[in-house]
């Protein structure tokens, strides 16, 4: 089949009526390329601005792009939905085999509407969608077991993705994730809870089809160029050797590794949980997303003895990255590698977002120490580094045995609003932050980024680059311009659906070249214009949903702990937000 025809197929699934159909949306893929560009338009069609994220009115959109499977490092699926954590348009990206499976199943996007009356999982295979009973899987304690069962009862090993939720999603924890291929996640902003509300336990997609490239010789040569860049690139080698965990020591050295709920940027046990130490002591295997030579996924082998029986052990394989190392390591004062891995394992089993969970646990520890909450609410004692108690709290967040834990399941902002300690409840637009205390640009980007994620603009790098170059901070207006410009280009990268780790490889000129064998003419200027347009589209949606940059709470804590750039000046941040507000208000007026 022709590459563009198969890309333009959008699969619609209605969970309420248990029906499905395919529509050819060539006009959408022609203008918006794919990925976030197309998913944003589908969201506009699908989700009314006042929709409750946990109601059948919310839709889940998965989209891949024109380069998916075609070139190396194009392995990402973009999920778009309304977030139950902050009630805004939001997106979350994941790799694994999800992108290639969707593309080779013959779709550019999948839209999941409505809600089922009882637990189901979907099997999307050979042009059909099967709605299968999931009552037996519902309530199962580990996402790993769910994966194991689905592997056995569905077809297509090697050609499929198995996206599933854990108990956290079923019980509507607002930061529940969707796990795919055991180690990859649609982690942020609560897609797991949206699945749970739809009584959707899992989505299995089997991709057995292929498509033809019009200009084969050019295709092969562009492919080889990117392949060589990828295997020889120092940046990709870094991702392969130590993975993102290399950030732990790098950040700690400049005192930017968030520690004990952002009270410091300097963790005395950073060495113990560093990428270097983990690789030496406990790394067991690396795995890759389908279509990516890098293999950045690092898996540790944890050998645990059974206390009740001598010489009897279990070995668990747990993947680690920088973000969990910060959230469930330094930010909780956990310097024990094994303690960290056990806690991370419990988070994975339940299907929770590691970042949000870690930030909430950090707030809990401080609230407990300050006497805002007691053992009566918490049902355990807690102190920094006590990973065994943290594991108990994680289980309680999911089972929600009392009112306190019902609030814990809503996110750090909500629980702190109810019980106090808002000044150290680390959240921006209700989204718990990633692991960088690098400076003001990062903080601003968390507030204005369209999904409030560290990947919106990668501003933690901007802070660090300024530091390395010994440069002054830009003016607040320049900071916003810089962040928006970077974020706009990233809209292009996530529309063609390449991994953002490969942003150094997929430079604008190369992206143009990638389209040549597909017989699609694009120019660098057109791409940049499109990126900006997608950015505006996303801002306009959020604007209509009530987003107001002037109302964003800046957690006091982030202003009181020095960064490598010194203390963050609140006026600087506020000025940046005012300028940002001006930009989006103007955009809104221009649009009418």
């Amino acid at each position, binding site marked *: 089949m022709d*590459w563009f025809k198969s890309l333009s197929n959008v699969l619609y699934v209605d969970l309420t009526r248990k029906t499905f159909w395919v529509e050819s949306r060539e006009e959408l893929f022609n203008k918006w390329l794919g990925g976030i560009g197309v998913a944003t338009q589908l969201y506009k069609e699908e989700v009314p601005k006042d929709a409750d994220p946990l109601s059948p009115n919310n839709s889940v959109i998965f989209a891949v792009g024109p380069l998916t*499977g*075609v070139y*190396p490092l194009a392995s990402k699926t973009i999920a778009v939905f309304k977030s139950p954590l902050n009630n805004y348009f939001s997106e979350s990206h994941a790799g*694994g085999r999800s992108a*290639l499976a969707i593309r*080779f199943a013959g779709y550019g996007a999948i839209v999941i509407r409505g809600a089922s009356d009882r637990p189901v999982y979907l099997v999307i295979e*050979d042009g059909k969608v099967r709605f299968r009973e999931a009552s037996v899987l519902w309530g199962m304690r580990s996402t*790993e077991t769910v*994966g*194991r069962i689905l*592997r056995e009862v569905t077809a297509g*090993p*090697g*050609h499929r993705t198995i996206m599933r939720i854990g108990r956290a999603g079923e019980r509507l924890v607002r930061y529940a994730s969707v796990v795919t*291929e*055991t*180690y990859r996640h649609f982690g942020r902003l609560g897609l797991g809870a949206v699945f749970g509300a739809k009584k959707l336990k899992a989505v299995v997609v089997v*991709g*057995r*089809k*292929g*498509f*033809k*490239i019009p200009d*084969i010789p050019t*295709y*092969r040569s562009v*492919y080889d160029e990117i*392949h060589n860049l990828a*295997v020889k690139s120092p940046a990709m080698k870094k991702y392969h050797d130590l993975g993102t965990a290399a950030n732990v020591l790098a950040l700690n050295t400049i005192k930017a590794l968030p520690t004990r709920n952002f009270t410091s940027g300097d963790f005395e046990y950073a060495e113990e949980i560093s990428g270097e130490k983990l690789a030496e002591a406990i790394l067991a*295997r*690396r*795995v*890759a*997303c*389908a*279509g*990516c*030579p890098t*293999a950045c996924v690092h*898996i540790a082998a944890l050998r645990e003895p059974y206390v009740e029986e001598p010489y009897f052990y279990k070995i668990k*394989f747990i993947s680690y990255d920088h973000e969990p190392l910060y959230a469930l390591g330094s930010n909780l004062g956990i310097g024990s590698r094994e303690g960290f891995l056990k806690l991370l394992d419990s988070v994975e089993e339940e299907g929770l977002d590691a970042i949000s969970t870690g930030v909430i646990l950090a707030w809990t520890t401080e609230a407990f120490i300050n006497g805002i909450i007691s053992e009566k609410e918490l049902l355990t004692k807690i102190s920094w580094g006590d990973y065994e108690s943290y594991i108990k709290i994680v289980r309680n967040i999911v089972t929600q045995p009392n009112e306190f834990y019902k609030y814990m399941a809503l996110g750090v902002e909500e629980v702190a609003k109810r019980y106090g300690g808002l000044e150290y409840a680390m959240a921006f637009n209700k989204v718990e932050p990633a692991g960088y205390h690098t400076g003001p640009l990062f903080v601003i980007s968390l507030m204005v980024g369209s999904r409030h994620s560290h990947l919106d603009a990668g501003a933690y790098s901007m802070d660090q680059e300024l530091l390395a170059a010994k440069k002054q901070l830009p003016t607040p207006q320049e900071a916003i311009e810089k962040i928006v410009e970077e974020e706009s280009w990233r809209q292009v990268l996530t529309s063609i659906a390449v991994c953002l780790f490969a942003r150094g490889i997929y430079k604008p000129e190369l992206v143009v070249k990638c389209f040549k064998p597909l017989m699609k003419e694009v120019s660098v200027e057109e791409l940049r214009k499109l990126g900006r347009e997608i950015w505006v589209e996303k801002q306009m949606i959020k604007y209509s949903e009530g987003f107001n940059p002037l109302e964003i709470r800046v957690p006091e804590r982030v202003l009181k702990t020095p960064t490598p750039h010194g203390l963050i000046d609140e006026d600087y941040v506020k000025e940046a937000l005012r300028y940002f507000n001006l930009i989006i208000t103007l955009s809104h007026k221009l649009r009418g």
Partner: protein
Amino acid sequence: MKRLVVVDVNKCVGCQLCMLACSRRFGVVGHNKSAIWVRSAGGFERGFTLVVCRACRDPPCARACPTEALKVRDGGGVILSPSKCTGCGFCRDACDIGAVMWDYEVDKPVICTHCGFCVGYCPHGVLSLEEVV
């Protein structure tokens, strides 16, 4: 004659670049023209299984073919004549390791020619093309 060999399956990261390379020989993006198959060995947590044709000297797939579409190659393995193939699938059933893959679009087997194109795209030293001794 050379044949494709799995040097060390433990080095495999499951990127499937070899599978993609195999289909790319025909200008196809997908896995449907691929004669090599990488799947997890029971989940990503257990590592990977690689299935490649072993270039048997007396290949059961050729013996099972009722239409003489599969001819034994010098040095082992088989060569497919698509015009003689009826897509009965006996060859696929005859291969115990599952190395006769299937192209669902044309409903015929995909047979490894031991060309070694995939080897060039394995960045982790899992595959090699070796002289048959």
